[in-house]
């Protein structure tokens, strides 16, 4: 037990971190590229107010459907709004939803999975059935119901996207936690009279960190894609807020030929973001736990 704790501490040392990052970049160039794009996106999202040449919601009928030019690098949409500015601000929406949903989904899933594995027995059985119900429930219905019942604002959208992620993460963390539960040091900890909460938090959770991180990065891409799909269907973020999926809705499809820039750039942004997150997540999985399969 003592050995394990030390090992974890050691990883936290800065020099090890830098070396690990350097190692990761050298061994997994694809993952490094993905990570670079993710970092770039984060920077863009934070600095959007300074980077964006125009206000993303100001309508300008004088510049409707303008093609890309020096004035509007990526053209304008049907309301004369600058596509580049909307893309930049849209990255904020994408990242807030992506990180929000993935963090909540993976964390809740991990807690449920570990709890389920730790307590076992009847609790495990009931939790498993509950997870099964949500796993087999069609996502679009859940999203639609959430949005129609609660109204569609950002927090509800995040909730709707989170719900299907929880059981998936719980499934994966549970099986990792099951293996740890059998370890003698857990029995030892219990014999020493530690409380359930302490054993789970101090001893089991750190050991499912690898699957947790892997699920988290996998969810990030999925959440961004889901947000885009739901916004495209009119169930997500709403006008005039800038969001990538929303930019593809309505006029973008109608003007797909006459003003292709309206659809091409947000489409590319979505793909690039999801691509980068997946690339990074995949390599992270290969590095941390090659045996783990993320569905």
């Amino acid at each position, binding site marked *: 037990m003592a050995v394990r704790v030390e090992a974890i501490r050691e990883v936290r040392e800065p020099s090890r971190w830098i070396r690990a990052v350097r190692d990761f970049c050298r061994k997994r160039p694809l993952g490094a590229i993905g990570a670079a794009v993710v970092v770039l996106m984060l920077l863009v999202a934070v600095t959007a107010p300074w980077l964006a040449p125009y206000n993303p919601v100001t309508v300008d009928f004088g510049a409707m459907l303008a093609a890309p030019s020096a004035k509007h690098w990526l053209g304008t949409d049907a309301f004369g709004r600058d596509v580049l500015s909307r893309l930049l601000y849209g990255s904020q929406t994408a990242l807030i939803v992506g990180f929000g949903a993935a963090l909540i989904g993976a964390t809740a899933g991990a807690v449920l999975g570990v709890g389920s594995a730790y307590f076992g027995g009847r609790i495990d059985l009931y939790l498993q059935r509950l997870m099964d119900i949500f796993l087999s429930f069609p996502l679009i219905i859940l999203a639609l119901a959430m949005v129609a019942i609660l109204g569609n604002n950002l927090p509800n959208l995040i909730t709707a996207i989170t719900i299907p992620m929880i059981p998936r993460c719980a499934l994966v963390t549970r099986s990792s936690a099951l293996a740890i539960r059998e370890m003698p040091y857990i029995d030892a900890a219990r014999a020493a009279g530690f409380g359930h909460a302490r054993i789970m938090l101090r001893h089991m959770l750190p050991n499912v960190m690898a699957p947790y991180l892997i699920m988290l990065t996998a969810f990030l891409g999925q959440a961004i894609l889901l947000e885009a799909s739901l916004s495209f269907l009119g169930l997500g973020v709403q006008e005039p807020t800038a969001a990538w999926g929303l930019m593809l809705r309505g006029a973008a499809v109608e003007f797909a030929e006459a003003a292709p820039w309206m659809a091409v750039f947000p489409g590319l942004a979505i793909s690039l973001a999801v691509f980068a997150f997946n690339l990074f997540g995949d390599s992270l999985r290969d590095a941390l736990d090659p045996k783990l*399969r993320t569905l």
Partner: protein
Amino acid sequence: MWKYILKRFLLMFPTLLGVAVVIFVLIRVVPGDVVELRMAGDRGAVSEEALAKERARFGLDRPVWEQFATWLLGVARLDFGRSMWTGAPILEEIKLRFALSLQLAVMATIVAVLLAIPLGVIAALKQDTWVDYAVRIFSIAGLATPSFWLGIVFILGLLIIFKWLPPMVYTPFWVNPWQNLLQLIWPALAVGYRYSAVATRMTRSAMLEVLREDYIRTARAKGLVEKLVLSRHALKNAMLPVLTVIALEFAFLIGGLVVTEQVFNLNGLGLLFVQAVAHRDYTLTQALVLLVASAFIFVNFLMDLMYAWLDPRIRFR
């Protein structure tokens, strides 16, 4: 073994019951009801009297628990009732769309398997070479492309380049195979690509894992031709997780192709689903959710059995 099968089989029912309860409550909590929606049309205002008459006709004026009990008893006898929107029997509504959805799911699976297995195996064998990178980029791109986007690009591409559009009305395969394939091959490709991305990744990682196992090393050491190693040992063991992914995706495809069916105008279950929810057609939505969930749960059950059969340790856990 039989005891295990029976246990897993019986465990399906509480899950299904849970799904039934959730959807029954959920669809009724969502604002807007079927009667109001159907009568509001384009003009909006309807008298309360007309609304009440119509609600009584569907039994919506009775207590919720009574409605639930009636519905559940019907389901137990495989009688799902009638659609509240069209008045047609639910089974008839579903049967009509099932053929198309099933065929599309099968075709997409074929596309996916044909792409995924070779690509995944090659990528694993050539791990960390440019071949591996190319395959991974190709498959991650599949995951990163929104399906609605790909469908629209397909249709526009066909229209602009070939000035041609796939047939809009479904012809069963046995009536006219050519017409049938002309319509379904495009959505099958669009769906199959994303689907293959998932399967390729799984094939690759499963293969990698198996290749590291001792007996493969032994087989290789014994001087067997590498090709033979692959086909005889590695692939067979790696197939199980791949099969799981394919089976689960297949179950999802039957009712989950909402946007693709919309874009290609396919009269399938996914579109029926969205319409049922938009119409707040309680009976139809409930039946469809149950159908999709059962497909999913049943596939899971089969997979559990498969694992148990291959790995006896599971049976005794």
